[in-house]
């Protein structure tokens, strides 16, 4: 029970916290606080239409990439490369979709999505192999690969994938038959949001109940014990986690191309893969909570553009707030560890067959994955 409450309460409190920080920042910078926040609210939740076309559409890639980061961190892998993996997924999906004839229809759409999954997984596996073969830190290699991915995309949209008129650095528009169906007529809300939610629930189930999910969590929490006591092939588990993480981000990119932009261009992602780290941390690496935290950040991003338009407040202000939230999260983890409790990153789901068990103590948690703050 308490877990459910917690899963809801944390994103909500983070939302309140970030609004508070934003208000303070606006006041200090001399902007009209009330007007700006009202614009932010209108831009994020003001009507069904902005909620669907703005917040939910923004939250979808954040959720995919947030899940990608979560699964990697739970396996003890600091994948900072969701941005590049998402971009490669988008590129592969676009390449497949513009090549296929419109008659490919739903099959073509599925092929494009699969291409995105494969490309994202393959891109992440580069960092995985580098780590295993040569001991290259994935924090470094994944960031580097983000830059490479950006330039690969840039090259392709000026070369082989450029639109037929050869004027703009972008691909041709996807045929309507190869686009994700709309969920709500008259809005930009597409079926990808449902796919993302299914992925979140599926990932939670996978980690909590299945044998490979258990191996992944144990490997992340203590690779030595996983290898010695569990006789788990931790190198293999880590590599698979790299691939799974990249695949989720790649799917996010493919969904973005087939559901939102309908064409590939360089700046397809306004840093979804980086904000995803905050999404995952706020959710304490719990895939179900990530749905809530993706919504919080999706709302902030959607609201930011409205705030810029209506109150002339630079949208970058919201970026400052997002970074602030990450700092608060990392600090609270550190405080938690000092107080002898596991930090937020040390918590997560776990099998419990007695739902009525004592709820004062936090349910165990297999992840101690990456420690973001120094002890």
């Amino acid at each position, binding site marked *: 029970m308490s877990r459910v409450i917690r899963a809801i309460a944390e994103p909500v409190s983070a939302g309140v916290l970030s609004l508070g920080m934003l208000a303070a920042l606006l006041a200090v910078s001399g902007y009209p606080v009330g007007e700006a926040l009202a614009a932010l609210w209108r831009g994020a939740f003001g009507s069904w239409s902005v909620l669907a076309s703005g917040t939910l559409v923004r939250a979808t890639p954040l959720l995919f990439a947030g899940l990608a980061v979560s699964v990697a961190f739970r396996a003890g892998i600091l994948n900072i490369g969701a941005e590049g993996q998402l971009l490669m997924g988008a590129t592969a999906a676009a390449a497949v979709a513009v090549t296929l004839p419109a008659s490919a229809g739903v099959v073509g759409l599925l092929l494009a999505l699969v291409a995105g999954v494969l490309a994202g997984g393959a891109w992440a596996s580069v960092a995985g192999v580098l780590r295993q073969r040569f001991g290259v830190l994935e924090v470094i290699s994944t960031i580097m690969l983000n830059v490479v991915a950006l330039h690969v995309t840039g090259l392709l949209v000026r070369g082989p994938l450029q639109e037929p008129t050869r004027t703009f650095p972008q691909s041709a528009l996807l045929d309507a038959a190869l686009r994700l169906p709309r969920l709500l007529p008259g809005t930009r809300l597409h079926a990808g949001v449902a796919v993302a939610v299914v992925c979140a629930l599926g990932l939670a189930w996978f980690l909590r109940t299945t044998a490979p999910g258990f*191996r992944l969590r144990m490997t992340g929490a*203590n690779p030595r014990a996983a290898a010695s006591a569990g006789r*788990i092939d931790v190198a293999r588990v880590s590599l698979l986690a790299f691939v799974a993480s990249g695949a989720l981000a790649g799917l996010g990119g493919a969904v973005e191309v087939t559901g939102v932009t309908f064409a590939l261009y360089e700046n397809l992602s306004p840093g979804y893969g980086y904000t995803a780290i905050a999404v995952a941390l706020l959710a304490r690496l719990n895939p179900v909570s990530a749905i809530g935290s993706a919504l919080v950040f999706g709302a902030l991003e959607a609201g930011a553009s409205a705030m810029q338009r209506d109150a002339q407040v630079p949208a970058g202000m919201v970026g400052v707030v997002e970074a602030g939230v990450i700092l608060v999260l990392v600090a609270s983890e550190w405080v938690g560890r000092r107080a002898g409790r596991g930090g937020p990153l*040390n918590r997560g789901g776990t*099998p419990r067959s*007695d739902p009525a068990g004592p709820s004062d103590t936090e349910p165990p948690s*297999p*992840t101690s994955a990456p420690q973001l703050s120094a002890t």
Partner: protein
Amino acid sequence: MSSVAPRLALDAIKRHYGPVIALDGAALHVAPGEVHALLGENGAGKSTLMKIAYGLEQPDSGTLRVDGTTVTIRSPRAAMAFGIGMVQQHFALVDAMTVAENVALGGSAHLDLRATAQRIRAISADSGLPIDPGAMVRDLPVGAQQRVEIIKALARDARTLILDEPTAVLAPQEAAELLAWTRRFAEGGGTVVLIAHKLREVLRVADRVTVLRRGRTVFTARAAEVTEVTLADAMLGEAERSPVIGVVSDNRPAMSDANAVLVLSDVTVRDDGGVVRLRGATVSVRAGEIIGVAAIEGSGQRELLRVMAGRLQPTTGRATVPTEVGFVPEDRHRDALVLDATLTENVALRGAATRRGILPWASLERDTTALMASRDVRARDATAVIRTLSGGNQQKLVLGRELAGSPSALVVENPTRGLDIRATGDVHAALRGARAGGTAVVIYSSDLDEILALANRVIVVAGGTVHEVGMDRDQVGRAMLAAGS
């Protein structure tokens, strides 16, 4: 009490960590020029009390006096100013630096390595602690690293040394040398507080003994006036005296004729750097026997045990190891347990590599609950996080997990290190039970008495080679040192 003010006096010390009361009015009076042993079970508060004396921890209340003057010690630096030094269980040395650099570290702002090396040589000669100031710490054996720690303290003019379980990491001969050294240090006017758990050792070397139980001082006396039994009674409370005190070899069942279940023939292991760690080892272990492995740290016993446990593949040679062999490694926090996971998850870890599909959590939890009952593992329930358990309970869970399903072989490495007397007794009983049940058991312990008390046969690893020796303390001790160089 003598008329001389105690060198170090702690009175009515209280300290709590959250809800846990570590010290509840503990007292300790150490006279100048004595070796004072501080005894108690795990968690009795020995280390906490000494960390307070050394300024690493602050008491909630209580008084601290040095040479009769009430003082407050806020940091190790402050303790040093009063001539108090401490060697902790886990050494605070920088592996990649030389002895001289380590000693200079944290000293005065002016770094003069040549002068430091001179000073180390002088202290080394004075104190009879041989050390090479130019040696790299990582190349030194544990015993020498410990000497570096002591010299570090002496170089800062420590006249009172607190040693936290110094013999736990040493081979018997090294331990005897260190204890003899503490006597000489005391006779030369120094003062030693020795945190210890081996009662026999304590009685041989200490002038006085203080016993803590549950954060209180329950007993203090001259060592000459007490026996091992008195001390054990004081540590455990009269009613709970363990039968393992003053270990005598128990009546072992006759060795069975069953076939060997664990066989190594001509096994050689090279480490990643190509260094030979184990050379031509041939060992066979039969069902229903306990083989003791005796070795000085770093002799190749680590590799031998891991080959026997199927956790390490021999570089050459053949190892026949049953697939379901149980393994209890020495460092349970690092190698045996996932501390932030539940008891159930830690039990499920065994065999996790070969499981498929959905794990049967409900039945795993029932198995864990049953295991807790049969092995006397005390925890809230099977969903408790293993970090919250005491070391003894964690170890009982590990042992229970590895013995579940009566494996045909079990390899254990220092299975009672860091455990109190009662938990040690439980672990020994479990190992004897496994033998009685037909399991082939291999035990390595750095405590030779433990090996001799449990084993049917003893093999010694020295310098990477394995020999079988007789069940005789001196013979084993000599073999451990032989070929070692």
